[in-house]
């Protein structure tokens, strides 16, 4: 049994104003999280922070004692995006979370250790081994994999590779060339008017029975329900997971981090239902449909 798992704050998936982002990360500096992932992973048109600003923020959080990791864009389409990607991968100070195989390639060429995010498809030990040989330091398990798969992966995990799981947040489910937030306002992507700013946790999409289903986040679609593995912390520890990821939301992120921190100290955590936009789910973890709430 290794030491207690650490807590990470994943990259913010949503589009917030510059002030809101700086205020948020000023609070994060005080939160009991060990690792902070920074950067724009969804849409290159979101520019409330420039790459320079992310580096500044990284410095600040690093000075506050956090391990800072820079996260890359998940869906790369334009050459301008490749330029930003190169800048991040060639930075010599912070580790990088690769969110697509292009970033993995650039980091291998740099010869630096790297993290893979949940949209890099690592589904089996053979894949994990190939990437470990190339410098993979930590992998975030893909969202749809279960604790059974995790147990099998952990049994064959290469020496020195850490495992991180997505433990809390609206789950990133898919990416597209099309911007669905713009589409929902009848706007083309090239003239989106930055509508994502109006939906700090995504824009709700419901079925015709008025049941909340998904949330539109620009070119990304996330779950309307919030994945919550807080009740699973004992099991997570038993599975020797190194890092639990909490995905930022516009409200109450500090309370959520505090609850996980308590749970990892074996103190009874408070229920989190009142801190999420809608309900919670845990289906993927238990091997079911992602939207199911099977325990907790």
């Amino acid at each position, binding site marked *: 049994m290794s030491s207690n798992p650490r807590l990470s704050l994943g990259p913010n998936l949503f589009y917030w104003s510059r002030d809101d982002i700086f205020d948020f990360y000023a609070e994060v500096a005080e939160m009991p999280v060990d690792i902070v992932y920074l950067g724009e992973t969804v849409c290159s048109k979101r520019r409330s922070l420039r790459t320079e600003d992310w580096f500044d923020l990284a410095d600040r959080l690093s000075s506050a004692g956090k391990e800072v990791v820079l996260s890359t864009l998940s*869906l*790369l*389409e*334009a050459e301008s995006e*490749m330029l930003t990607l190169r800048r991040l991968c060639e930075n010599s100070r912070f580790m990088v979370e690769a969110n*697509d*195989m*292009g*970033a*993995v*390639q*650039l980091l*291998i060429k740099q010869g630096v250790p790297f993290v893979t995010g949940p949209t890099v*498809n*690592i*589904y*089996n*030990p*053979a*894949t994990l*081994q*190939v*990437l470990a040989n190339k410098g993979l330091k930590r992998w975030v398990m893909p969202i*749809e*994999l279960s604790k*059974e*798969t995790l147990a*099998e*992966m952990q049994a*064959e995990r290469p020496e020195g590779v850490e495992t991180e799981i997505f433990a809390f947040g609206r789950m990133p*489910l*898919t*990416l*597209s*060339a*099309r*911007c669905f937030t713009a*589409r*929902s306002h009848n706007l*083309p992507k*090239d003239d989106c008017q930055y509508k994502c700013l109006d939906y700090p946790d995504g*824009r*709700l*999409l*419901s*079925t*015709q*029975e*008025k*049941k909340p*289903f*998904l949330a*539109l986040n620009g070119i990304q*679609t996330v779950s309307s329900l919030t994945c919550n593995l807080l009740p699973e912390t004992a099991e997570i520890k038993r599975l020797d997971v190194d890092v639990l990821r909490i995905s930022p939301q516009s409200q109450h992120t500090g309370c959520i981090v505090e609850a996980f921190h308590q749970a990892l100290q074996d103190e009874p955590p408070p229920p989190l239902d009142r801190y999420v936009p809608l309900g919670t789910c845990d*289906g*993927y973890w238990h*091997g079911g*449909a*992602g*939207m199911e709430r099977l325990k907790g």
Partner: protein
Amino acid sequence: MELVCPAGNLPSLKAAVDNGADAVYIGLRDDTNARHFPGLNFNEKRATDGIVYARRKGVRVFLAINTYPRPDGWERWQAAVDTAARLGVDALICADIGVLDYASNRWPDLNLHLSVQASSTNYEALRFYQENFGIKRAVLPRVLSLSQVKNVVENSPVGIEIFGFGSLCVMVEGRCILSSYVTGESPNTCGACSPAKFVTYKETPQGMESRLGDVLTDRYGKKEQAGYPTICKGRFEVGENTFYAIEEPTSLNTLELLPELQTAGIEAIKIEGRQRSPAYVAQVTRVWRQAIDACKQNPDRFSARAEWNRELGKVSEGATTTLGPYYRPWQ
């Protein structure tokens, strides 16, 4: 430009071969490929028959092993690769890094193509697969505009194949888990999007309802034809509006882009639809063969003939077609 056509069974393979395909792609009868549908695909004997038939007419056969094995399924994927090598297919189409690693080490002479399911949208990603596994070709996800496709082709270490026609995945292939969010099964893990066993249709006072699992994907008016409840093609409520929030039921059709695709140096055009009938395969292959030949002969004067688009329209989802992401305003 090579024409690569789908075959879900031997009659479809023959239809593709007889109507002018340069290559046909198939899958085995299990979850090792992304069209793992009941009654579809090839066992070893049928695949052998298909390869013999195709070879006799100078047509190549590719085999897709393009899903992602989890630890408990690993041996099945290994066995599938071994089967493909034994069959002597002209190329193996793979997505998973572990599978590519196994195939390139165990069968170094086997041609490897990178599947669309590998979700690689840029040339740096393609370099990874080329440098590590020696892939010879890559199929691009349907997320790039035409100018972005050109940029990838210019910088890619391998030949590029793109989708020309068929049902349109709106999401980036290989990284969409909408299906498992609702059903527990996704293309990556189980080889099917929105698997049929979770689909129900029910007549109600509000109209015909289609569901995937418990999720209502659409309600149809009296004059509307009910579609398949793929999540991304459903009608949902966002704000005050009920509409196709993600995409209408429509098919991709890039016929009119052919001269540009040829100039761009696209190596192959792929037709979607291993789950479709031999009649579909025959019809689509015939039209595309004519179009590619016409374009090769005289690219400057090429235009998509009305009768071609009419033929393709008949077999399209929702009977409509789109240029999809290749055409920027669609995005």
